[in-house]
């Protein structure tokens, strides 16, 4: 069996998906991402403005405290009385209270701002996802989209919260603390500060190490869940072929690898506090040596010594965090770029400036010299040289072998894909000029493998209605032969159908999808191989109902079975994306072409 055109197109698509989605100009990408990030920050400038002011005040207090401690102790050295000492100690308490108060506001503000922006980005992402066409969902895997909505949004939040907090406040803190230290004792300050820059580098290396290992662990967890997911989804095969031992061995391999990576991250994480401790140790070593000598030589007072040690400990943590924050900022920047990439995609299917003022449709469909190629499929057209006219109120049957382009053809009618060549007219108006809302609310389509949402059955049936109305739901369900099943469900129409409708059988799912379409009362109804999992008796009943429903509407019925379309007003036969035959059933059978062959084969298969 050779690959059919549809299958070939599919493989092209698969290979296109495995390549990076965009290469593009990296620098331009970064610029655009930065612009977007700043626009979010600018939108929240009130938050950040107040925060910056409080940070300055906080730094002031933070720097003042050690100095005040030294000042208080100096009162003793200068022989000032106990009253003066108490007065100075009160100043410490006062500054401490103020600093803590400011600290509270400052932290709250910056973290709230980060959450606010997280919220805005997530809303924007969701709104963007709603606008993107099918072709986007063909190119992008769900996992990739989810990872941007979850992981990358998180990374940006960290960048804007902890990241920004440290990037802005640490230098200010340094500036203040070092200034004070320098004014007290320049020589000792130089000695003490010497190891700090080196330390920042060390911290950065370790930050990267942790980042590296955490990515590996994430990946390992991903592999583990994939392996699990597969073994569980295929549990029937695993059991039927007694493969438990084999899958357990496979699992153990991933499990062991995950363990190895987790040890890696454990090593990196464990070394962090050890290193954080080393910096003040080195600085204190210097203070003991140099400062101690100065005290012995009476060039320095014990109060200064105490102040210095306090500054050393105060600067340690922000210094260390800086190393960490650099990694955080880098990651956040990369994430912003990934999000920007998604947000920058121009929705190719949207109302444009030349949209016509169409308010209702009659249902006439016309394809003119249409040619369609899936994006990224390598240029093999799925549909070519297609001319087809369906008068309003008539029924069109579309048949052809698997992969001949039937489903593609019908998904063009509600504009799920962009047309790339040729024209599609509805009521004589170019489909691209009809307002999307009008177009889609006049068309109801039951796609192959329809998707149901994890809401109640009634809500699913009323999915396209402005609100869930019982009468409409019941009427549509009756027409789709779903009503009698509903009676057997314990909560009737209020039964939650579960994720993707798992609580329903395949046939019930298809009938729910049909009811959902019928509830719309559309001008154009498209049925794409809709009843494959419905049993024979029910199918017969549905067809009887549909005969009534179809009256006066334009209907397009797609099937790989000749029997499903034989009574259509007109039948077109597709092969490799082209219309090879067209006419009524009897004419096509008489013609003795592909249609006749399919009819014969399918009849033989049925023992008819």
């Amino acid at each position: 069996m050779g690959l059919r055109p549809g299958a070939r197109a599919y493989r092209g698509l698969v290979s296109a998906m495995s390549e990076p989605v965009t290469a593009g100009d990296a620098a331009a990408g970064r610029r655009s991402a930065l612009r977007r990030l700043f626009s979010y920050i600018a939108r929240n400038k009130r938050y950040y403005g107040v925060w910056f002011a409080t940070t300055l005040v906080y730094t002031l207090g933070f720097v003042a405290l050690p100095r005040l401690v030294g000042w208080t102790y100096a009162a003793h050295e200068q022989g000032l009385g106990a009253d003066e000492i108490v007065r100075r100690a009160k100043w410490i308490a006062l500054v401490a209270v103020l600093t803590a108060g400011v600290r509270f506001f400052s932290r709250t503000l910056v973290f709230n701002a980060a959450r606010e922006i997280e919220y805005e980005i997530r809303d924007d992402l969701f709104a963007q996802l709603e606008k993107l066409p099918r072709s986007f969902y063909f190119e992008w895997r769900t996992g990739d989209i989810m990872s941007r909505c979850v992981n990358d949004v998180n990374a940006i939040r960290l960048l804007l919260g902890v990241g920004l907090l440290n990037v802005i406040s640490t230098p200010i803190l340094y500036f203040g603390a070092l200034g004070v230290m320098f004014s007290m004792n320049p020589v000792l300050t130089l000695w003490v500060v010497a190891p700090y820059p080196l330390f920042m580098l060390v911290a950065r290396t370790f930050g990267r190490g942790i980042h590296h290992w955490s990515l590996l662990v994430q990946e390992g967890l991903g592999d583990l869940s994939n392996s699990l997911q597969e073994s569980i989804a295929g549990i029937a095969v695993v059991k039927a072929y007694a493969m438990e031992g084999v899958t357990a061995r496979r699992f153990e391999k991933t499990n062991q690898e995950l363990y190895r990576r987790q040890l890696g991250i454990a090593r990196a994480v464990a070394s962090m506090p050890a290193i954080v401790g080393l910096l003040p140790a080195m600085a204190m070593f210097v203070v003991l040596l140099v400062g101690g000598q100065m005290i012995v030589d009476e060039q320095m007072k014990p109060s200064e010594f105490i102040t210095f040690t306090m500054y050393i400990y105060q600067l340690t943590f922000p210094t260390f965090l800086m190393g960490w924050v650099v990694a955080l900022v880098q990651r956040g920047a990369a994430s912003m770029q990934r999000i920007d990439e998604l947000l920058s995609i121009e929705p190719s299917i949207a109302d444009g400036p030349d949209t016509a003022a169409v308010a209702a449709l009659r249902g006439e469909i016309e394809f003119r010299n249409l040619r369609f190629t899936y994006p990224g499929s390598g240029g093999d057209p799925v549909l070519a040289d297609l001319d087809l006219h369906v008068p309003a109120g008539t029924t069109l049957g579309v048949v052809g072998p698997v992969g001949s382009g039937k489903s593609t053809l019908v998904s063009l009618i509600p504009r799920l894909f962009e047309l790339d060549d040729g024209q599609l007219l509805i009521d004589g108006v170019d489909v691209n000029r009809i307002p999307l809302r009008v177009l889609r609310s006049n068309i109801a389509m039951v796609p192959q493998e329809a998707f149901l949402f994890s809401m109640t059955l009634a809500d699913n049936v009323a999915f396209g209605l402005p609100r869930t109305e019982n009468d409409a739901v019941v009427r549509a369900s009756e027409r789709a032969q779903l009503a009698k099943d509903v009676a057997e469900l314990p909560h009737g129409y209020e039964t939650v159908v579960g994720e993707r409708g798992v609580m329903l059988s395949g046939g019930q799912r298809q009938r729910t999808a049909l009811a959902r379409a019928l509830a719309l009362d559309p001008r154009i109804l498209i049925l794409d191989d809709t009843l494959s999992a419905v049993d024979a008796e029910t199918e017969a009943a549905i067809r009887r109902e549909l005969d009534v429903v179809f009256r006066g509407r334009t209907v397009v019925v797609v099937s790989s079975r000749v029997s499903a379309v034989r009574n259509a007003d007109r039948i077109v036969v597709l092969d490799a994306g082209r219309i090879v035959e067209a006419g009524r059933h009897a004419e096509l059978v008489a013609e003795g072409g592909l249609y006749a062959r399919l009819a014969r084969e399918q009849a033989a298969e049925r023992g008819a």
Partner: protein
Amino acid sequence: MSASEARSSATEAMHEEEALGKAYDGRLLLRLWRYVAPYRWQVALTLGLIVPLFLVEIAPAWIIKVGLNGAIGEVQERPTRLDQWLEPVSGVLDAPAGLDPLWWLAGLYLVSALLYSGLQYVNMYVMARTGQAAMRDLRRDVFEHIQKLHLGFFDRYPVGRLVTRCTNDVENVAEMFSSGIVALVGDLLRMLGFAAILFLEDATLALLTLLVVPPLAVVALVFRFKVRAAYRLVRVRIARINAYIQENVTGMREVQLFTREERIRAEFDEMNSAHRDAWFMSIRYDSGLFAVVELAQSLTVAIILWRATGLASAGTIYLFIDLLRRFFMPLRDLSAKYSVMQSSMASAERIFQLLDTEPDIEDRRDALALGERTAAPSGVVEFENVWFAYSGEPQDEADWVLRDVSFRVAAGERIALVGPTGAGKTSVLKLLTRLYEPVRGRILLDGVDLRDYTQDHLRRRVAMVLQDVFLFSGSIFENIALDRDDIDAARVAQVAHAVQAHRFVEALPDGYASEVRERGSNFSAGQRQLLSFARALAHGADVIVLDEATSSIDAETEALVQQGLHTLMEGRTALVVAHRLSTIEDVDRIYVLESGAIVEHGSHAELMTRHGLYERLYHLQYETQQRSPTAAA
């Protein structure tokens, strides 16, 4: 499972994932200990390190105190109690002759600081390693247990939740080792230690400074409860948001087709802002706690200076400032550690619940293993008065899926099972492969009860081809051989040839080494079926059990599939569940099932003359194919 059960289990599941659990549960900890026990020497090491760690942590402060006092030349009038206690070891601080005492002290300081860093590293690493090793073992147990559970379990338990048990939940429990219980206990011990040292140094001063602790503890407690409530909300809301995105991304075609974008966007915004607001609340308390701890720390410094300046030595003041800083540090992330404990406990509970689920079907101790066959295997299948229901002996008569089903299939015979949807056809197959067991009656293979075979044995002899062909990610070769050593490349090529799968496989660039994507999504339904036939054929079973596919395949592939089927069934006992009657006219016998009971049997021709259910079904199906689908106009 009925929908009501589904619904209640869905809400139950929601609650289950949302539960935070107690921070401490002795029963759970005891069970967890069983996984830690193999690594008890590592645990002993971390426990043994607690005291040395504490000593090297406080040593630097002591050294500086002594050095500072020495440098100032301040001679204390009376040594503090700490000095008296440390009298025996204070000799170390005296520099050996000829060495600058400052250099000696600074050197000692550096050595103890380095020792502290080193020991801390060892301690943390060993702790994390113990946790991860235990969790690796737990994960292995969970996986092996999942595999043992019977199929009915998987109908009720969504795959995603099982994956969560093995990944997130186990990770959560591991957290407890690295930053939960052990760190919590360690922190408490250290704080007690610091307090003790301070009391020894200057009891009055220690009492005064530590006075800030009780009010601080109250504030911390209050904040902790608030944070906990807020955090719980956050978790619930973010889970909803992500599930919502996932669902709508997957169903975006429907959202767009039914122009529901605006409504969904509004719903999403509601969830999204609720999540943000929960965070605002959580941030407020978290920042509050931070600020309060910082305040307490600064206030103690003020107290020290107020009370001690001029009275105590500079060294004592340094010691107080240094140790109090260490004392307050753990308080800052106490609430974080507490919530780690809570979520670990909840996760542990969920994991053990899963591990407590009994596997329904296990081998009997004296079961016949492969190779211990009593008689020559031939493939005779007998059902003797089999009654079956998915939930065991049912309350309601109507819940029986099979009622008193008896039939015999001789070796090499082919039979078909037909009947309306829900008649119990597929259940017969599942019983024969012992994926489920009969409630009453028994099933025999070559005269031996299925329960007397090991599952391994049985499954090598009975090959099942399912309606839903499941392909694993891996190569085509692996998917046919299923990791059995005795199936080599030649055998795989041979079976693929036999079922006509070789044509499309060999057309692929990598032939049998070609990659099968997850769930075989890069192959058509027909191709997947052919591969599953090859798989069944390669395993050389005596009995073939087949659930015919209902999915629409184009005529050309269907012809191939039919041929492949014939090859597969040749010379074997075969039971086929047929959905399309036309495909089974040449079987030896047809059993017609209705509501779980056999109502007719015989050959196609015989059944057609009987004018019963079979004939009705046959005509109905035939007519449907011929009837008008679209009688418009």
